[in-house]
């Protein structure tokens, strides 16, 4: 099973999980990104994800294929939600099944790390204080890329 999905509806993680079952697999690792109630000191009310669908689908499938090839896992799947999300919603789900747990963990981690860096998807946070912002973009531009230089990869943001 290899499948990458995008959806505006709530992610049915249990349905995705069930599709990973495989009798040759002894281990299953999963990750979920949840919309949390704060980010960098701001109270978050809700958020929006905007996605460049065609490219996100091809890039997402590429990431999954890489995970399978690099770590030799049996199945890898991922679904990312977009549109309007509320606190506690699942923004992204990743599932990996494998003969052994080591590969399952590594491949699952690889998928979410790459998704965060490579998938053409953007997040706008709406704050309790009333304002809103595209995560990374406006803030980094305004702060002279402080986030980018402080941290080697993508800054951690709400949703993970």
């Amino acid at each position: 099973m290899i499948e990458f999905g995008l959806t505006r509806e709530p992610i049915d993680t249990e349905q995705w999980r069930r599709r990973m079952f495989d009798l040759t697999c002894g281990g299953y690792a999963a990750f979920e990104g949840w919309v949390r109630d704060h980010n960098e000191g701001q109270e978050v009310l809700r958020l929006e994800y905007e996605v460049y669908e065609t490219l996100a689908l091809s890039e997402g499938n590429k990431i999954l294929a890489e995970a399978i090839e690099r770590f030799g896992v049996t199945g890898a799947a991922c679904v990312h939600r977009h549109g309007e999300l509320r606190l506690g919603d699942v923004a992204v789900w990743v599932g990996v099944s494998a003969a052994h747990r080591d590969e399952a963990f590594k491949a699952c981690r690889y998928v979410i790390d790459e998704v965060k860096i490579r998938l053409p998807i953007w997040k706008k946070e709406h704050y309790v204080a009333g304002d809103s912002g595209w995560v990374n973009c406006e803030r980094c531009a305004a702060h002279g890329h402080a986030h980018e230089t402080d941290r080697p990869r993508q800054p951690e943001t709400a949703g993970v």
Partner: protein
Amino acid sequence: MKKIHVRYFALFRDQVGRDEETIETEASDPAGLYAELQARHDLGLGADRLKVAVNDEFTSWDRSLSDGDRIVFIPPVAGG
């Protein structure tokens, strides 16, 4: 002169005030086209912060553009 279809997402959509536009340009590659658009729409981000996709595939800044190409300049992403 060639016509290039540009789509805008996220920050760029907000800054430009629209989802897409068709540009007539002499620019030979995405780097040249981005310089034009950056000046025209006062886009804040330097090209070094972006990726670019032509016809729904990531591509390099110096690939040549053809009449009718669809291009997206991709601001820093934030999935997950």
